[in-house]
């Protein structure tokens, strides 16, 4: 096929992100300047976000390797928003970092491009390239504070385990190719049919292992708390938001487009994984005394909830996943943003131990309000965005009469409420913490502070008035290629 202007237009956001990455690289080669690099990064991302708007009208556009449809644009917008947040947070966080600071933005842009490729992939080759382009810069970002033991450990741990998961993914692809003889997803889905053979089933299972690792679905979740704990704040934010969104979107695309996933056996496996995720994530979060580890376990639980949408796989599944992903993204960015801001003016480990947060309200009331709103939203309390997402998931489970899963969500939410409230109580205690750690005095005026405040406002707004978000997600579903 020939590449027409329409195709080029549809791929332009991706091209602009890559061009920004190269500009940043050449900029660093020319002259190191922290503010300038951050500014170029932010301008590039904002330009790309603006460019997504006209493409909505022309979607879906398909090229041999990529499909620019509703789901891809939706995921692209979420990835870019979280990259923008990470860039703003990194600008505050890296301000007094002794080593080279500018490369972080380069890695961030590369990872964002990888996420966009992954979300738009309709071919196993682009799926693999996108996943690697998303993961490779993340290794560097996680180990960015390499003089810090924990950060280095997080980077190497994620690197080795991720390489093992990639091996599973590749083997799964090889089995699928042996069965089907094609690599593009529509052909794979068509040939596998409703009842896949043993090899096809094994291939799908191995793909599920590879993607499940990145989503920290339960048997493959062991890396999550350690990596979240050790990673520098902005890197952990990106890992918890953009990386998970991109991988979940590609998994959603696989499940929706492959009739083999309607197989009872595969659905049973997904249901067991979902239930295990909810219970393990929530129960292990109970005993954490470190906020970043706690958020890690809570993300395991949240992806357990999200898997319910994949188990059901029809009806409102796309809409539910979209709404839940969006609310999860906004909330997680807010919570990690506060942790990052509190860690920004200290060398050494991030401020994550709960005793640092004791009585934070009496020192930084607005920042505490942001964290409180985020935690309430993670717990799924009404009038926050998290409630809308949880409502959708439970409605979907009830509609499909998956009573075990609905029971799991309810038990998980009850346990979740306990540990989120425990953190909130700590925030408002009167006695001072053991060691005082604080956000910079002028945090509200800095880029990261403004973004975090905006996110908290968004969490409340989406909770009170979710109609525009739901409209948007419906539009996404409407222009998604099945």
């Amino acid at each position, binding site marked *: 096929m020939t*590449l027409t202007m329409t195709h080029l237009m549809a791929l332009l956001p991706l091209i602009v992100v890559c061009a920004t990455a190269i500009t940043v*690289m050449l900029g660093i*080669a020319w002259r190191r300047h922290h503010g300038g690099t951050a500014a170029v990064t932010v301008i590039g991302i904002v330009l790309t976000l603006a460019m997504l708007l006209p493409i909505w009208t022309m979607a879906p556009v398909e090229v041999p390797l990529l499909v620019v449809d509703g789901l891809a644009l939706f995921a692209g917008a979420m990835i870019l928003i979280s990259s923008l947040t990470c860039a703003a947070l990194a600008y505050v966080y890296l301000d007094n970092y002794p080593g080279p600071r500018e490369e972080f933005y380069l890695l961030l842009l590369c990872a964002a491009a990888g996420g966009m490729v992954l979300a738009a992939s309709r071919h196993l080759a682009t799926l693999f390239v996108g996943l690697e382009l998303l993961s490779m810069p993340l290794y560097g970002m996680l180990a960015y504070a390499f003089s810090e033991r924990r950060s280095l450990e997080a980077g190497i741990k994620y690197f080795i385990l991720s390489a093992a998961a990639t091996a599973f993914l590749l083997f799964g692809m090889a089995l699928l190719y042996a069965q089907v003889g094609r690599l593009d997803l529509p052909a794979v889905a068509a040939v596998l049919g409703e009842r896949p053979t043993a090899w096809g089933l094994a291939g799908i299972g191995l793909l599920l292992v590879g993607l499940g690792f990145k989503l920290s679905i339960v048997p493959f979740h062991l890396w999550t708390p350690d990596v979240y704990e050790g990673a520098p704040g902005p890197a952990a934010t990106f890992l918890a938001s953009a990386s998970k969104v991109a991988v979940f979107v590609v998994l959603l695309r696989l499940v929706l487009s492959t009739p083999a996933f309607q197989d009872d056996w595969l659905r049973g496996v997904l249901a067991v994984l979902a239930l295990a995720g909810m219970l393990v994530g929530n129960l292990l979060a109970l005993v954490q005394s470190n906020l970043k580890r706690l958020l890690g376990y809570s993300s395991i639980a949240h992806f357990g909830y999200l898997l319910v949408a994949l188990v059901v796989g029809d009806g409102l599944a796309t809409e539910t996943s979209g709404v839940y992903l969006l609310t999860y993204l906004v909330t997680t960015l807010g919570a990690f943003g506060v942790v990052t801001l509190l860690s920004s003016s200290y060398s050494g480990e991030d401020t994550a131990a709960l005793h640092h947060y004791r009585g934070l309200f009496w020192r930084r009331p607005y920042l505490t309000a942001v964290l409180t709103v985020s935690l309430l939203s993670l717990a799924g309390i009404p009038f926050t965005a998290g409630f809308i997402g949880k409502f959708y998931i439970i409605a979907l489970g009830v509609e499909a009469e998956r009573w075990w899963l609905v029971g799991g969500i309810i038990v998980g939410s009850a346990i979740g409420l306990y540990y989120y409230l425990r953190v909130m109580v700590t925030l408002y205690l009167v006695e001072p913490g053991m060691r005082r750690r604080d956000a910079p005095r002028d945090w509200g005026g800095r880029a990261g502070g403004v973004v975090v405040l905006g996110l908290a406002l968004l969490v409340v707004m989406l909770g009170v008035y979710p109609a525009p978000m739901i409209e948007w997600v419906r539009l996404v579903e409407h222009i998604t290629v099945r």
Partner: protein
Amino acid sequence: MSQTATALIAEQWAVGVFVLAVLTLCVFTAGVASLLGGRSWGRAKSLPFESGVVGAGSARQRFSVKFYLVAMLFVIFDIEAVFLFGWAVAVREVGWSGFWGAAVFILILLAGLIYDSRVGALDWAPRRRPPGPAT
């Protein structure tokens, strides 16, 4: 179900036999060797065997980390040069669009090379300090 299982066995039995044969062969060679082979102990027996010559020095030598960086850069640029061979064999068929694609690819490589040389990744000796964070 039993019918599909039978069909599955009929289709895939050769693979099963292969896996079984591999396992049997491994167990057989290791088992027979341990049963029939003689054993001898001695001080020199626990030394590493290096063509009959007594080993000298420690195996834990320290290399400058620079070598790894140079090796990695070599592999990266080498692999990317390999991609150009794919273009070279199809240069007439892909025409101008292929030319511009390859040109973009080479320019990105060039940008990477400029970056590498500017941050000091290509310097062999640790003499010159790489330009650190300015201001």
